[in-house]
């Protein structure tokens, strides 16, 4: 027994002797990390304001769900599972890592609450955690080196591959796990050799394997491994700590903050400047982001937090068709800029224009603001606000493509991008044939209504889309709604105007419409245009409740007020395309599907990319006027996805989707094989009048029976 404790003392003597060295490494490591982080924070203090300190409970919920709960990760099953495993490992190992570090300075230290049995259980858990993390790292390295998932590739125009750095960082973590396990194993092996009882429960764990390997070695050798394990752990730990802020693993430190301060409300846009009221905007010298310092601190934190996982660009429709935009590199380029202009030593430089240096104009105009990137990002990095801010900067400098200047000018003078006369805004409802079926009143001081049907420019003026307007009006009429339209008094909702960075013009349109809507005295608004819906819901203030027609339809189907005729069974297979501003930005996924599924005999399939992974049609509003450089139309890709799903009718619920999809059907050569229809048009077509007969059997059902 005496011999045993002597040899144990031998084994741990280095802990006492090396105390000064370990303390030095601790201090160096912590001081180095503190210095690096302080330098990294400099641009954040020079950045624009961003009010993100509100609603702590909602933010905490966000942190629990997306950070601790790793909510987004399962969307990519392989990488996601690996990440969840080693994230859980890190969380479990955090306390152990601290304990080990302190032991170097104070050998007898035991984390409070982890003495005795609890400590033993924790040890078993951490042994397995370290093992899992180690193997996850090995798999991750193999994935990077052998399987090479396409989304990690770096196109030549965006610089060098990031693979070496990624593998290096993964390897360091694997080494850290080995070092930790070696330290643990050497201690256990030493105790075993000294004849002390060793309770080693973590069978098949990395420390367990190492213990077995070490038990047959001599005590001094074990002592050597013990020391080496400790030193390797400490050095690797601090090296990682100080190296991570230089690359893709900085998110280990920043992710919790990035998620906590993430955007809370979908569908919204950041104001031009946080804390500046609309009336004061004329005094603001410069709009939008022109230099790096014009970004908000949160947006800079986004740049630091990006893990370079490529999920955003993997889902970006603009990137998919070869437009010059990749959300991933929007971030990486900004981070590289920050690292270069805010170096570790010396004076930070600033003030360089971003457009023309790291970003190109086409790159920034290429975004459809579909939100697929943001939906995917596990770290909740924001893109739309940055794109819009960069556009605001370009608009402020007069830097707007000629193809967009015409519609913007027309919006200014006529209130619609086509430059059509205001008095023709209600023409869609004034056809003789249509008026015999349905009369749409224009609201003024004489004609009031409960419900406003907000039509918006494209549905009012585009020959094809007017049919959506008529279908919507007929549905509302059929439901017995007391509704009307603003007619000439309705200007474009300005949704895309705002998203294309023309805030002042947007405010003029919004103010005009707000006044017209409030003067009309309506108590609710219905629209069939998701862009108008999003604008009225999120960009306007003091509006009565707004609904999209699909919500109205779904509610009335559920209440039983609305029944549909069966569709003719002629081999039609329907698929529903989620418009971005109905789906991702407003989470209306189920209502349109419920409406479709309530149509008897309708066969519906889902596309691979649907609901929150829906693939944009190519963009609405002003995007229809912009001519991006691309290899293929976004819509063509979407139509092919529908064909792959086995569908031959694409149902959508947005006039802009209709433009793009109908065009794409022609471009893809699928004319005659594929058609597109708006949900409102389909519903209107299938509406069965529930004229109840005396016996209570709906007339229409009888008709169907006789027909069969």
């Amino acid at each position, binding site marked *: 027994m005496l011999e045993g404790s002597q040899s144990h003392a031998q084994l741990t003597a280095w802990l006492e002797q090396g105390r000064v060295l370990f303390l030095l490494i601790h201090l160096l490591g912590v001081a180095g990390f503190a210095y690096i982080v302080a330098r990294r924070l400099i641009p954040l203090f020079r950045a624009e304001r961003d009010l993100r300190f509100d609603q702590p409970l909602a933010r905490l919920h966000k942190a629990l769900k997306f950070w601790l709960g790793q909510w987004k990760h399962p969307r990519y099953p392989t990488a996601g599972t690996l990440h969840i495993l080693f994230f859980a490992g890190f969380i479990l190992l955090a306390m152990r890592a601290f304990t080990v570090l302190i032991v170097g300075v104070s050998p007898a230290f035991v984390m409070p609450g982890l003495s005795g049995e609890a400590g033993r259980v924790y040890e078993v858990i951490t042994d397995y955690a370290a093992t899992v993390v180690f193997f996850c790292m090995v798999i991750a390295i193999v994935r990077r080196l052998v399987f090479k998932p396409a989304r990690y590739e770096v196109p030549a125009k965006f610089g060098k591959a990031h693979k070496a750095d990624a593998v290096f960082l993964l390897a360091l973590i694997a080494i850290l796990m080995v070092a930790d396990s070696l330290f643990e194993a050497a201690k256990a092996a030493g105790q075993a050799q000294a004849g002390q009882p060793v309770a080693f429960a973590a069978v098949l764990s990395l420390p367990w394997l190492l213990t077995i390997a070490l038990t047959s070695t001599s005590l001094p050798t074990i002592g050597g491994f013990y020391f080496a394990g400790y030193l390797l752990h400490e050095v690797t730990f601090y090296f990682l700590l100080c190296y991570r802020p230089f690359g893709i693993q900085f998110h280990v430190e920043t992710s919790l903050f990035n998620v906590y301060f993430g955007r809370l409300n979908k569908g919204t846009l950041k104001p031009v400047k946080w804390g500046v009221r609309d009336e004061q905007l004329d005094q603001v010298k410069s709009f939008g982001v022109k230099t790096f310092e014009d970004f908000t601190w949160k947006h800079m934190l986004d740049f630091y937090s990006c893990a370079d996982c490529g999920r955003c660009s993997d889902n970006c429709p603009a990137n998919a068709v070869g437009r010059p935009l990749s959300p991933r590199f929007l971030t990486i380029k900004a981070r590289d800029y920050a690292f270069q202009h805010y170096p570790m030593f010396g004076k930070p430089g600033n003030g360089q224009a971003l457009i023309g240096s790291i970003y190109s104009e086409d790159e920034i105009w290429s975004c459809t603001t579909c939100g697929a990137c943001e939906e995917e990002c596990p770290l909740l990095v924001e893109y739309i606000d940055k794109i819009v801010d960069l556009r605001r900067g370009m608009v402020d400098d*007069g830097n707007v493509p*000629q193809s967009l200047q015409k519609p913007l000018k027309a919006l200014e003078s006529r209130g619609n991008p086509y430059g059509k006369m205001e008095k023709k805004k209600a023409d869609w409802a004034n056809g003789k044939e249509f008026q015999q079926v349905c009369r749409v009143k224009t609201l003024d001081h004489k004609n009031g209504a409960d419900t406003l049907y907000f039509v918006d420019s494209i549905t009012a003026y585009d020959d094809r889309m007017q049919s959506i307007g008529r279908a919507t009006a007929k549905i509302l009429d059929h439901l017995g709604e007391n509704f009307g339209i603003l007619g000439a008094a309705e200007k474009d909702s300005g949704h895309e105007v705002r998203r294309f960075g023309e805030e002042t013009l947007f405010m*003029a349109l919004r103010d005009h419409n707000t006044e017209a809507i409030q003067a009309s005295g309506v108590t609710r608004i219905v629209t069939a245009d998701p862009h108008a819906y999003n604008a009225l819901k999120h960009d306007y203030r003091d509006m009565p409740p707004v609904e999209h027609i699909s919500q109205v339809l779904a509610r009335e189907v559920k209440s039983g007020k609305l029944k549909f005729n069966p569709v003719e069974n002629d081999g039609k297979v329907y698929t529903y395309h989620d418009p971005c501003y109905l789906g991702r930005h407003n989470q209306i996924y189920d209502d349109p599907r419920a409406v479709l599924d309530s149509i008897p005999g309708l066969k519906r399939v889902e596309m691979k990319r649907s609901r929150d992974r829906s693939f944009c049609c190519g963009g609405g509003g002003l995007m229809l006027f912009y001519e991006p450089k691309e290899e293929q139309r976004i819509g063509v890709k979407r139509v092919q996805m529908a064909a792959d799903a086995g569908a031959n009718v694409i149902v959508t619920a947005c006039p802009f989707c209709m433009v793009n999809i109908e065009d794409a059907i022609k471009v893809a050569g699928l004319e005659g094989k594929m058609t597109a229809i708006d949900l409102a048009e389909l519903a209107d077509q299938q509406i069965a009048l529930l004229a109840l007969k005396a016996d209570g059997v709906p007339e229409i059902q009888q008709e169907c029976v006789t027909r069969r």
Partner: protein
Amino acid sequence: MEILVCIRRVPDTSENEITLNADRTDIEREELVYSINEPDNYAVEEALQIVARCGGNVTVVTVGGEDDEEVLRREMAMGANHGVLLSDDVFGGSDGRGLATILKTFVRKGNYDLILTGVQAEDGGAQVGGMLAAMLDYPFASLVNSIEVGQGKKLKISREIEGGNKEISEIDLPCVLSIQTGINEPRYVGMRGIRAVASVPVPIYGAADLALDPGSVGATAARVKRVDYFLPTLGGGAEMLTGSREENAERVLELVAAKGGLK
């Protein structure tokens, strides 16, 4: 370089449906929206770019009423340093020569090295630039689609000739150039820019300020008078092809070949 750009406010052809008034003396102006004459916008952009390279000032000037101040403000929002409105009751009804006369007296008041106009007004006849140059006895070049500031008091300019070729000329300053669209990509001006220059004063000069003989301008002096407007009579209509895409394509080929379009 001191540059003067003569601009004009016209009904925006892309945002209006042009109809004639009841007695066919004018187009119906009730619901028209107006904007800067498009070629003039290119002229201002070109002036701004020259000034950005070589220094100097850009002044925009128009002849008209108080409504026309709007286009001066728009071009000032683009970056023009000064805007001047030439307005007087006696200017009303001036023909191209009258406008050139008014502008000539304004040019004489200042010290401009270069005078630009758009190639033509969308509601005009491309007259003013040439006449203004003649009245000032300045060299004139029309349809200019590039300007290079050379050594000394010379410009190298070009215009497009048949087949997309360029003809390069040298011209002495001061001179008058009429600018073709496509010479540059004019910058965007939104409401925000216009609001920012809303309080910049725009001087208004009348005939007296310009020491102009009222008899030399206006309706009485006009030697070209508008006598009528009419809408072209509807033709016989086009032949509509109603077959399948392939049939139509073949028929189009036949038709084009029959008319000698294909050899």
